């Protein structure tokens, strides 16, 4: 009986199984219940965060704004050089050396990570923008804010492309349908103006989406985009669009940069209103009232007491921001970059990748700046042209400025050196004995940025007391190994090193990265926005009514008080008097001064390479021979060491193919409507 019942159960169960099998015979959905779908991703806050993180992952590597040469040789122009990774000195290297970069000896395949990373991020951002509304774990305000962050990312990636490659294809708002034929996917390049308008409009939208929650992000979100970041990129894109490269460009190469139909991609018609729009956009950032230049309080005593600028009746007696009476200009500038401040605590940092810098970030720059005697690579340095650009501490030019490159005013370079008596009497602070007087009485940013021959390196993270506080000389036969050395690449080609980004604690003892203070990347800084504002206003003849980002109207014209609003903070924080009234009254004169101010203030921040191109100054500035100290001279020949010479080890030139980075061959072959930049080839 029991047996029978078992048999019966068995048959029944089998039947049940059979019928159920039949029903779902061709259904496969049951296998995919746990499958992650787009709906599931965007319903979840955690997964949406991960999607956003992956978009921003594309900001790393070659897409960094400020990084060492392995990612962006573009951070090195006529201000700063790198001497290593040069197969002329080290045959084991097969990388883009500074000389190859500056001679245009790169190919259509070099540094092409930008293109693929940007367009990947653009697609993923579009997916985010069009699906985040599904989220059930965020409030409406949060959804808006996150959509704004993704929109910022997408427009920023377009901005990186525009700056490097020139006009690029702007894709539709939603993800491109990849099931189309190759012919239908052959999207041509837009004009420069169209790219600028797209970026500006999208950044405006992103700012509006982020305005409820994204004015400031605090310490947990210092690498996230904010309203200020979006408005700043908008201003930068508009300024680039207003600049001579894209505004009334009638140069020969501009006629060659066209789409397949022969339409010019760089506007040959000059339109002054573009400058007004750029100025208004910069003013939007200023009027947010969130940002200010960072300052360190005046320090009366001690070894590193404030070096007080010469008396100036307008600024010496007033406190910041009207004057410099209560600040230390040198420390104020240096600490913006050296890692003293966390990203969230730096009031002039508008956008940063924070610590998402991989292996070639700002810290990698610093270990290449540190001298050999601190186990650094001793290969990143500065040009004589930059050294000469720094003002004297009273705002005048250094004697002998640019004399060797045919731009001198007849004055001669200062002779002589700081003596022991000078030092003990406190003259020429902060110079130490033995330093050339060419480096005396210079503006505070000079001392924060330039590692001149005989400067002090603090190196406080060195484990041995005796290795700290070194005075480093770059003479040949230097007993600490910091001078010219024919057997390796680790010497400064110009005999001029770089201090910017270096924290007093930084050293590279034992090749240990932990001995370098972490530094947030200064991708966009308030000083840049201030100078952009003045630069754009200076170009105006007429008066324009331009809407602000909030919809009210600005009246924009070449107003001296408004230009001073941009220039003065930068000058005063640096302990320098404002420009003269006559300079303000002369458009050409002021333009030169603003260019020089950017050269100095933004050195090493990835701006100069692109500034020279948008101003169309690159053909002249990039092809001037690079001067520096005569590093073949030893200490007994120190007068000759300090007599600037054309540096034989650094080469530079400019040709039309160097306006924009080449587009790689494989992409041109896949998109028959994509046109190459002038001077570069289509073929293998």
């Amino acid at each position, binding site marked *: 009986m029991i047996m029978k019942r078992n048999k019966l159960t068995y048959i029944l169960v089998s039947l049940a199984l059979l019928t159920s099998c039949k029903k779902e015979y061709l259904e496969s959905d049951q296998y995919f219940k746990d499958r992650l779908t787009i709906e599931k991703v965007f319903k979840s806050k955690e997964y949406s965060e*991960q999607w956003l993180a992956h978009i921003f992952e594309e900001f790393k590597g070659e897409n960094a704004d400020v990084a060492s040469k392995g990612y962006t040789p573009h951070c090195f122009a006529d201000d700063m050089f790198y001497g290593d990774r040069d197969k002329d000195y080290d045959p084991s290297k097969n990388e883009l050396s500074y000389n190859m970069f500056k001679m245009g000896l790169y190919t259509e395949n070099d540094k092409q990570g930008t293109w693929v990373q940007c367009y990947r991020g653009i697609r993923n951002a579009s997916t985010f923008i069009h699906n985040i509304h599904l989220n059930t774990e965020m409030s409406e305000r949060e959804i808006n804010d996150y959509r704004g962050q993704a929109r910022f990312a997408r427009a920023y990636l377009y901005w990186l492309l525009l700056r490097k490659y020139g006009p690029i294809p702007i894709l539709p708002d939603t993800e491109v349908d*990849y099931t189309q034929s190759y012919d239908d*996917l052959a999207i041509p390049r837009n004009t420069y103006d169209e790219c600028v308008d797209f970026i500006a409009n999208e950044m405006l939208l992103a700012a509006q989406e982020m305005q409820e929650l994204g004015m400031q992000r605090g310490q947990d*979100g210092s690498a996230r985009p904010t309203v200020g970041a979006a408005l700043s990129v908008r201003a930068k894109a508009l300024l680039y669009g207003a600049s001579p490269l894209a505004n009334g460009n009638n140069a020969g190469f501009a006629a060659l940069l066209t789409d397949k139909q022969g339409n010019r991609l760089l506007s040959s018609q000059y339109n002054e209103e573009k400058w007004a729009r750029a100025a208004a956009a910069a003013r939007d950032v200023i009027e947010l009232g969130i940002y200010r230049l960072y300052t360190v309080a005046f320090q009366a005593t001690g070894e590193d007491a404030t070096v007080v600028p010469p008396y100036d009746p307008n600024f010496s007696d007033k406190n910041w921001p009207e004057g410099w009476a209560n600040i230390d200009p040198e420390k104020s500038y240096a600490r913006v970059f050296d890692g003293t401040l966390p990203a969230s605590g730096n009031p002039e940092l508008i956008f940063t990748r924070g*610590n*998402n810098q991989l292996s070639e970030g700002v810290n990698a720059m610093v270990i290449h700046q540190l001298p050999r005697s601190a186990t650094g690579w001793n290969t990143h340095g500065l040009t004589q042209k930059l050294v000469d650009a720094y003002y004297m501490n009273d705002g005048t030019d250094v004697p002998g400025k640019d004399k060797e490159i045919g731009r001198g005013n007849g004055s001669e370079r200062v002779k002589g050196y700081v003596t022991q008596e000078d030092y003990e009497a406190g003259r020429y602070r902060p110079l130490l004995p033995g330093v050339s007087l060419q480096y005396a009485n210079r503006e505070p940013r000079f001392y924060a940025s330039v590692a001149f021959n005989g400067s002090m390196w603090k190196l406080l993270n060195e484990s041995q007391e005796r290795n700290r506080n070194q005075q480093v000389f770059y003479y040949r036969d230097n007993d600490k190994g910091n001078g010219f050395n024919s057997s390796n690449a680790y010497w400064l080609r110009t005999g001029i090193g770089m201090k910017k980004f270096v924290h007093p604690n930084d050293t590279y003892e034992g090749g240990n990265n932990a001995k370098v203070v972490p530094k947030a990347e200064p991708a966009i800084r308030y000083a840049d926005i201030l100078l952009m504002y003045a630069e754009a206003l200076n170009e105006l003849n007429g008066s324009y009514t331009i809407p602000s980002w909030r919809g009210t109207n600005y009246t924009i014209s070449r107003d001296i008080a408004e230009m001073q609003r941009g220039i003065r903070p930068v000058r005063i924080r640096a302990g320098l008097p404002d420009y003269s009234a006559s300079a303000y009254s002369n458009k050409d004169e002021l333009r030169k001064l603003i260019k020089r101010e950017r050269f100095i203030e933004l050195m090493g921040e990835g701006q100069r390479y692109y500034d020279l191109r948008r101003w169309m100054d690159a053909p002249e500035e990039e092809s001037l021979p690079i001067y520096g100290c005569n590093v073949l001279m030893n200490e007994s020949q120190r007068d000759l060491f300090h007599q600037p010479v054309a540096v034989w080890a650094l080469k530079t030139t400019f040709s039309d193919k160097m306006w924009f980075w080449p587009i790689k061959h494989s992409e041109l*072959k*896949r998109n028959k409507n994509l046109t190459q930049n002038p001077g570069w080839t*289509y073929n293998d």
Partner: protein
Amino acid sequence: MGNDQLAGGTRFPYLYTIGQTSSNVYQWADYGLDRAYLGMRFTQVASPYVTWEVSEKQNLGLDIALFREKFISYIDLFDEKRTGIYMRREFLPEIVGLESVPSANVGAVRSRGFDGRFEFRQRLGEVNITARANMTYSKNEVLKRDQTNNVYKYQNMEGYRVDQNVGLIALGLFKDYDDIRNSPKQNFGTYQPGDIKYKDVNGDGVIDDGDNVAIGSTRRPNLIYGLGTSVSYKNFDFSFHFQGAGKSSFFTYGKTVYAFSEGEWGQVLKGIMGDNRWISADISGDPSTEDPNASYPRLSYGPNPNNFRNSTFWLRNGQYLRLKTLDIATAYLRRSQTA
């Protein structure tokens, strides 16, 4: 019609998959704090429109038996056009922004040819003769396939056969430095007399991948044939079978012909070491060893990208005819077993 060689081995190509990265990809917080996230993205995008391949086949069969089945032949003429061949779309522009490769029904191929089998039987007294032959000939043509928008149309595979060999056209070996100076620049690394000289197909003054063209025929033979005969007389059997293939070519490569390409000692063919190689007169003391028509280029140590690449220099005809079997047999019976 299905295809059992699904490109990429994706099981459900019409579905996408989304996955997480294995480690954090972006840190939002200041140094020393942690607000980092893993990344999430499509690990495989969907190919929503994939479907069956379509094949149109036309066959014409002809079976003939003559002379009381002494001669029999079966002939099958075929013409197949397969469209919508399932392929990976490897050449989407990067502006599309995908992180994985979708598939689609994009290819088309037409194949034509015939299959034939022939049989002949004859009995001459106690001698039985049977002869058989077979032959397959097919010719196909790529009508459409997934490929990049080549600058040089001759590099497009359309119009060529499936598996067509592609390479440079070799013009022998460089005689001397004057020969090098008077020839287009070859962009495959350094080269010197005794290295292979190539033809500048597109006439742009440099030899590079743009000069690759279809050379030889396909890797798979287009013609396969066999021929066999057996003769039996009383207890004796004799049979042989030849088999052959034609219309194919292949490249020789590897360390036996690319001498010392892996930078170490190894087996090399005798011809390379012997007198069939270009040898500098500085070494041999005899200018005649600098033979631009030698079968092997100069010896080099380690990789030599100029020489060791597909070209007519290394292309060999793949045709062959072999005697596959030869049987001689006899059978004898013991009386005890028949009893």
